[in-house]
Each structure stands twice: as structure tokens, then as C-alpha cells.
């Protein structure tokens, strides 16, 4: 029997993020013969995790909330105890952070945002660079390969995996001194929000072509009518027209709506990687040759300051 793959479960106080299933699917795809051992760090009772062959519940008083350094220490100690064939997580903020700690402690390489991996000596991997706009083929020479899988590449559909209730849970108690969790969540600030950029079915997004903060009024009106979220390009946040939380792209958010409406956005590669997962793209642009237009499913050519208000008006008229 091959050594197991340890898969870090990304959870927040017991609530398991959807993305975590992608790491389980990635492990089964790349290491079909290795059993998958899910690792749940912290909490009194591990949350149910389906799709794994076994669950390690890592318990310690220092681990009751997210603590990147202590999570890294704990996962490293578990790995030292069970000699896995690899450690895997989904490339979320926490996934990449904890694996970086494990790799730093073990002084092993860590490959973030991996798309494909083939075990061997060395392992061969393909990973995403530039936020996904460039692919890198690389080798990983390591005692213990540590990999995060790129988001939204492996579907979390684990139809053939064992159901949660059939899986045994083993406990592991790491040795952590007092203060091991010196970096941990000590407080939370809730910001009430309705529709979020990452979950909205429609995103209406504006770029430099919008021209000003006030120029977003028409885009907001359209978003409101469609139950959509408002997004923007980096030029817009750099101008201070919108908050950075609205930015879509490599250094902003990744969105995957049914429809992405890009108003006055040229379609630079760093913006495109943030919305390429949209099912449909509608570009509104004065330039018929802008990459956003040529790559979009639908386009309207012309001045967004005339077109967006006309769409708002037409939508109101039909609904009246």
C-alpha cells in the first residue's frame, strides 16, 4: 500500500470551505493509488469531510482558531509521524499560507497553484504563474513534496469517494508550547454585505472608460436592476474611483458569474484571469479591437456613457 497523501482541510471554526474538495479531487487524480487522509486542525469535534479515506483530527488548546504558524507546526509534526507521500491543500489564502510554513520548517520545496502533478523522482508538475496567465512546467526534488492545487481546476465532485460516515477519525496531538499560536485570529470585524462579488450571478464591471467615480452611477443602477455586484479594473482602484475590494483580476478577486459585463475595460491579461471563469462575457467598448471585445461572447461598440443608461432605461421600460 502506498503512503497516504495528507490533504489539509481549509475550514473556519468548523465550517469547511467548498474549495477544500478540490484538493481531495486533485489528490485522487494525481495519486490514484494513494489513500487520502484529510487533516482537520483544531476544534473539539472534526467537521464532517466526505471524499477522504481517513481523517486526522489534530487537537490542541492553541489551535481553537486559525493560527498560521501553529497550523504549520502541527501539520509538519503530523507529517513527521506518518511519513506521507505528499502534502496537499487547495491554493486558497490559508492553504498556501499553511503549506508555506510546513515547507519552511522542513526546508523542502513548495509548489503553489499546481495544475498537474506526476509522482516520480523528481516529481513533474505544471503550475500557474502570473495569476494563471502563464503555465510553468517544473520538477520538484523533495523528500516530501508539498503542493497546493490551483483554484477552480479540479471539480469537487467526488462521486466515487467514501461517504463521510464510513471514514474513521484518528486523533493527533502535536507538541506546541504556550504561545505557539502567537499569530492567530484574535478578533473579527463583520462587514454586512448583500450580494458579494464572488457569489453574484451577474457582475457589472467598469474600467478606465468610466472616467470618474460619478461615472459609476449608471453601472450601479444597472447592477441594482439585475441583482448584480459591481466590479472594476485596477486602473479604477488606482484612481480611487472604487474600493480595492471591488477589483477583479490577478491582484484582485476571482469571479465566476453567469454573465460578466465589462464596460470600458480593455481586457489586459491581468484583468482577464480574474473573470475568465465567467460563463458569458458582454463587452461594451468604443474600440472594436480591444482584447475584451474580441474575446467576449457579446459586444456593443460605442460610448458606455450612452449605452449603459439606455440599457437601464430599456430594462425599466420592459418591467414597468
Amino acid at each position: 500500500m502506498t503512503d497516504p497523501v495528507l490533504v489539509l482541510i481549509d475550514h473556519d471554526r468548523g465550517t469547511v470551505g467548498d474549495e477544500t474538495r478540490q484538493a481531495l479531487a486533485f489528490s485522487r487524480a494525481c495519486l490514484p493509488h494513494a489513500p487520502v487522509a484529510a487533516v482537520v486542525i483544531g476544534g473539539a469535534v472534526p467537521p464532517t469531510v466526505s471524499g477522504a479515506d481517513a481523517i486526522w483530527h489534530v487537537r490542541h488548546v492553541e489551535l481553537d482558531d486559525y493560527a498560521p504558524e501553529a497550523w504549520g507546526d502541527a501539520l509538519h509534526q503530523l507529517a513527521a509521524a506518518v511519513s506521507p507521500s505528499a502534502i496537499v491543500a487547495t491554493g486558497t489564502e490559508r492553504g498556501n499560507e499553511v503549506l508555506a510554513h510546513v515547507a519552511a520548517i522542513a526546508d523542502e520545496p513548495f509548489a503553489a497553484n499546481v495544475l498537474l502533478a506526476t509522482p516520480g523522482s523528481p516529481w513533474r508538475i505544471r503550475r500557474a504563474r502570473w495569476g494563471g496567465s502563464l503555465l510553468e512546467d517544473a520538477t520538484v526534488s523533495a523528500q516530501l513534496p508539498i503542493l497546493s492545487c490551483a483554484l477552480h481546476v479540479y471539480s469537487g465532485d467526488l462521486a466515487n469517494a467514501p461517504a463521510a460516515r464510513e471514514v474513521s477519525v484518528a486523533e493527533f496531538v502535536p507538541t506546541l508550547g504556550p504561545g505557539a499560536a502567537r499569530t492567530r485570529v484574535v478578533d473579527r470585524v463583520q462587514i454586512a454585505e448583500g450580494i458579494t462579488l464572488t457569489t453574484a450571478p451577474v457582475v457589472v464591471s467598469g474600467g478606465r472608460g468610466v472616467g470618474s467615480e460619478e461615472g459609476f452611477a449608471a453601472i450601479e443602477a444597472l447592477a441594482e436592476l439585475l441583482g448584480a455586484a459591481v466590479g472594476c479594473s485596477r486602473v479604477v482602484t488606482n484612481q480611487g474611483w472604487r474600493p480595492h475590494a471591488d477589483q477583479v483580476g490577478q491582484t484582485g478577486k476571482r469571479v465566476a458569474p453567469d454573465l460578466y459585463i465589462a464596460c470600458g475595460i480593455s481586457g489586459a491579461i491581468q484583468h482577464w484571469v480574474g473573470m475568465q471563469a465567467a460563463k458569458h462575457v458582454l463587452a461594451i467598448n468604443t474600440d472594436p479591437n480591444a482584447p475584451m471585445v474580441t474575446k467576449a461572447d457579446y459586444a456593443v461598440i460605442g460610448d458606455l456613457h450612452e449605452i449603459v443608461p439606455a440599457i437601464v432605461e430599456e430594462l425599466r421600460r420592459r418591467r414597468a
Partner: protein
Amino acid sequence: MPALRILVCVKRVPAPGAQITLTADGRAIDTRNLAFTTSPHEECAVEEAIRLVEGHGGDITVLTVGPPEAEEQLRFSISVGAQHAILVTNDRVADGADPDPQATARAITGAVRALEAEAGPFDLLLFGNESADSGGFQVGVRVARALGRPIVNGIKAIDISDAVLTARRECDDGFEVYRLGLPAVIGVKEGINLPRYPTLPGRLRSKKAEVQTIIAEPPGGGLTMVRFETPAVEVTETVLLGTGAGAAGAVVDLFYELGLA
């Protein structure tokens, strides 16, 4: 509150436009027609350092591991308000090789130790959340671990008082709050601030500033780049719904067709 000594690690990266083009051997980005820039998260890290020093007093050192051309990015940081610049380099890096994350972290750790032995400890090391080009999500963590200092990544707000640093990280429904004792290390995310532009006196200062060079030849790590490939672009048949305001009807038809209105 005593003055703060801050070190910011920045990386020189190409600024590609709509499409990345590779060299014929697929081992590098074709930069012949490209400008270079500092990774965006790091540009914000430099700005954050300037704001902290404006509030508390102190000074800022910027450091890069890269070719001699990376002086351009160091001087830019000086033009907006940093005081000292360190170029960490060697022959391979000067030839354009991008060291793997373990080698980069070792070079930075060694340089920090040397700088601290010379002029005293830094209170704060700032990194970007991830480098724009390689996106390894690890160099800051490796350096912090090697130096035994606490680190949190993904930070969008920093506040320091009484040698305690309070940091905020964006999550789905708001912010998580972390508290770290100094000296500390932080991975900064774009959006923490809006970086300022250089002033004319700043530009003049940056031209005259001395860049200190450190030669470092750390052993490489286990992640070795073999080649790059640009992802296949899906060819899309764009449906033109019309031009100008007259297209509004067709757009609204589309909304209904997609079941979104």
C-alpha cells in the same frame, strides 16, 4: 513610541499587456517590448512603510534580489520615500535567472542578518503577499521562519502602537484581526493603501542615492523551472449586438434569454 526601522522586499517583474509572449526556447518571457515594474502588492508595502514612518519616525530600506537593472525599482522606491537601497545579486541572477523560492529566501535572510549586524535590528520586514510573476506564496514565510519572527500574510491594514502590530486580513464577510509583537514580518496585499507618485525632489534624490550591492550565492532549492507555456486562448465568435444606445434592446433581450432579468 520609538522610531521604526523597516525593510521592504520588492521584486522587479515585467509588465505584460494583453498577452504574454515567450522567447523561442520557452524558458522566459520575451521582454523586448516590455516595461518593468515592482509587483503591485510590494508597491503597496513600500507605501505602507512610508506611512508608518510618517507616523512614528524611522527609516526604510528596500531590498531586491535581482539583476543590476533592478536598481530601477529600488530607485523608484527611494523617489517615493524610502531611504536606503540594497541590491542582492550574483552572476546567474545578473544573467536573468529567476532563483527558486528557497534560494531567494536564503539570499534575503543572509542579507537581513548582515544588515542587522551592521546597523541594528529591523522592527518590521514587509513582503508582498505573492510575487506577480512566479506567485510562489512563500518567500516571506521562509524568511520569517529562518529569523524566528512571526508572520501573517494577506494583510490589508496595519496599525502599530506600543510595539504591538495589529493587522487585518480580508475574509468573505469582513476582516480577521491579528496581533503581533515587534519585530514582526507581514505579507501585504494590494488595496492596503493607494501608493503615491514620486515628487520631483524625490526623483532627484533617487538619482543620487547609493545602492549597496550584496553578492549572495545561496544553494538552490528543489523546485526547478523547466519551461513556460502560454495557455491556449479559446477562439470566441463575438456576437455584435449593435453600436451605441440603439443596442439597448438587443442587450436586454440577451438578459432575458440568459434568464438573468
